């Protein structure tokens, strides 16, 4: 039973990683850049929910919607101001700019909300599920997280397959110039991608803080790095990869913490990542890189 509990916790944490990793992977697929500020967008989303619930006393559902709106707008603004001017510059320059944005968001949060950690109230308020005669207790947050993750992945896959905007995303990620010649609005599509990724970050942030209820300006950075690892693990640019990578990473982290060493759980996660990449250099679902001479 304890194993099952750990497994369920792992899947829950993994679902959060997966939702964050989706944001990383979509942005990478389309803009070919590592959006280092993604983790901090999560943190801003958490603060948005926290403030609207505690200061404005709004109901949880409204607060979450508000947070999604805040993060979506933030994502679009960041893209327009910091990343768009550098679209044709070296990838490293974009990476450093993203790091700058990350510092900026952290310090804005530090100024607005202070360095002390806020205790976040879970927004999922129904009782936990008890199975096997009370031996297996699944917290309600876990259930919501896992279901939400599956819904989001399914919705994204349908969106990309069935809608015109989704097809435009695929086209832009394959070849920007060709897509433009075919009449795709490249700038609009990239903005849309950032908007979706940042909106997902808000959702992930709320789930993360409901499960681990301490909120500081640096809350987003480690989950951000882990989720990025998950995206690379699954093969960056692939939605399935982000999903599978996220879940696997969460399960490995929780099981490693429970059975091997609680202090070494991060090291175990990263060691598994290294092993996977050595066997499959582009991740589990990554396409092999072909080089032309």
């Amino acid at each position, binding site marked *: 039973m304890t194993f099952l509990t750990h497994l369920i916790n792992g899947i829950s944490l993994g679902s959060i990683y997966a939702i964050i990793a989706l944001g990383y992977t979509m942005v*990478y697929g389309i803009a070919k850049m*590592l959006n*280092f500020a993604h983790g901090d967008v999560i943190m801003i989303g958490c603060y948005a929910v926290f403030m609207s619930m505690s200061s404005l006393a709004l109901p949880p559902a409204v607060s979450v919607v508000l947070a999604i709106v805040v993060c979506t707008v933030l994502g679009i603004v960041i893209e327009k101001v*910091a990343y768009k*001017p*550098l679209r*044709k*510059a*070296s990838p*490293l*320059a974009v*990476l*450093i*700019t993203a*790091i*700058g*944005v990350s*510092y*900026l968001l*952290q*310090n*804005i949060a*530090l*100024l607005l909300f202070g360095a002390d950690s806020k205790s976040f109230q879970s927004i999922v308020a129904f009782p936990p599920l008890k199975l096997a005669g009370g031996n297996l207790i699944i917290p309600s947050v876990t259930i919501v997280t896992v279901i939400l993750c599956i819904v989001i992945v399914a919705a994204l896959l349908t969106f990309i397959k069935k809608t015109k905007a989704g097809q435009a995303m695929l086209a832009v990620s394959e070849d920007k110039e060709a897509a433009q010649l075919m009449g795709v609005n490249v700038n609009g599509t990239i903005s849309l991608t950032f908007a979706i990724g940042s909106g997902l970050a808000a959702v992930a942030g709320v789930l993360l803080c409901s499960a681990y209820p301490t909120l500081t300006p640096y809350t987003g*950075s480690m989950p951000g*790095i882990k989720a*990025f*690892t998950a995206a*690379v693990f699954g093969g*960056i640019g692939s939605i399935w990869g982000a999903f599978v990578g996220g879940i696997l990473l969460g399960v490995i982290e929780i099981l490693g913490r429970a059975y091997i*060493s609680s*202090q*070494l759980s*991060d*090291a175990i996660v*990263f*060691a598994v*990542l*290294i092993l996977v*990449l*050595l066997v499959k*250099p*582009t*991740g589990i679902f990554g396409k092999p*890189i072909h*080089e032309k*001479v």
Partner: protein
Amino acid sequence: MKKIDLTNMKKTTKDHLVTYGMVLVVYVIVQIMLASGSLSSLMQGLLVPLTIYSVVAVGLNLCVGYLGELSLGHAGFMCVGAFSSAFFTKCMEHTGMNESVRFLLAIVIGTLVAALFGFLIGIPVLRLRGDYLAIVTLAFGEIIKNVMNVLYVGRDGSGFHFSIKDSASLNMAEDGEMIINGAKGITGTPHQSTFTIGVILILVSLFVVFNLVNSRSGRAIMAIRDNRIAAESVGINITKFKLLGFTISAAIAGAGGVLYAHNLSTLTALPANFGYNMSIMILVFVVLGGMGSFRGSIISAVLLTMLPEVLRGLSDYRMLIYAVVLIAMMLFNWAPKAIEWRERHSIRDRLRNRKTKEVR
């Protein structure tokens, strides 16, 4: 033939001499300011960190600028260098060894151990490419930091005891002495890093990288960076030269770590000093200073380390300003539109135009 060679030589040598000279001039100015007492205690405290970051930035620039591989794990090599050298210093503390000799040996040991780690990590890592390589170096850096936090080493009459659980499971005798105490790290390392030694290390690492870059090996490394397949087809051993560059880069970062360890009385592997944040900070120095320009790395390491301290009067806003300045500088330096604007409004061009008009 010989004459052409000489003029070519002169150009790069002159460039190198300018860099050495710049470091020396700054050193002399700082010494004068120290002697006249016009340097605030805050600035004096910054002198050694400035040299540490400069050394590590030079090392990382070799990796990013010349090898063309983005490493996000150089803080890990710093960590290895710091801990191995501090461990050595602690072990030798009561043997009565001459302090300067001991510190010199500590630098050598820290550098060598970091080089060894760079070599071992480089073998698997350098098979990967681009962002995958970046994330794996980050992973190795985090693993090193994480392991350092759970490593316990003690010593008693019967020799060394190791554990990765806690200090109690070392089973030491009564008189045993803790050397590495898990998350509490190494305490009581003597303060031996001085500005002078830091500057000497900068000069030595500059000497190493300049000589490497202008050697046959250096040209091979740059050929691999520019086009791996073309380099391979002319018979360059890709693995060998990539490993060479990466190992030297790690070794220099390790030397920076030694300085770091001997500048603090307590050495711990925190996310703030040896986590990916540190690797990223060094990377910012390298990219802002210009990839492939060692002089640029040193200048930007010094300026960016001093910027938050100079802004200390603005207390709460200083890191905010730092972030804004960083973004603005990147946009100004790299955005195609900004480059175009700079070319149109370039002062150098205007002066040149004026001169040509005068001649006419």
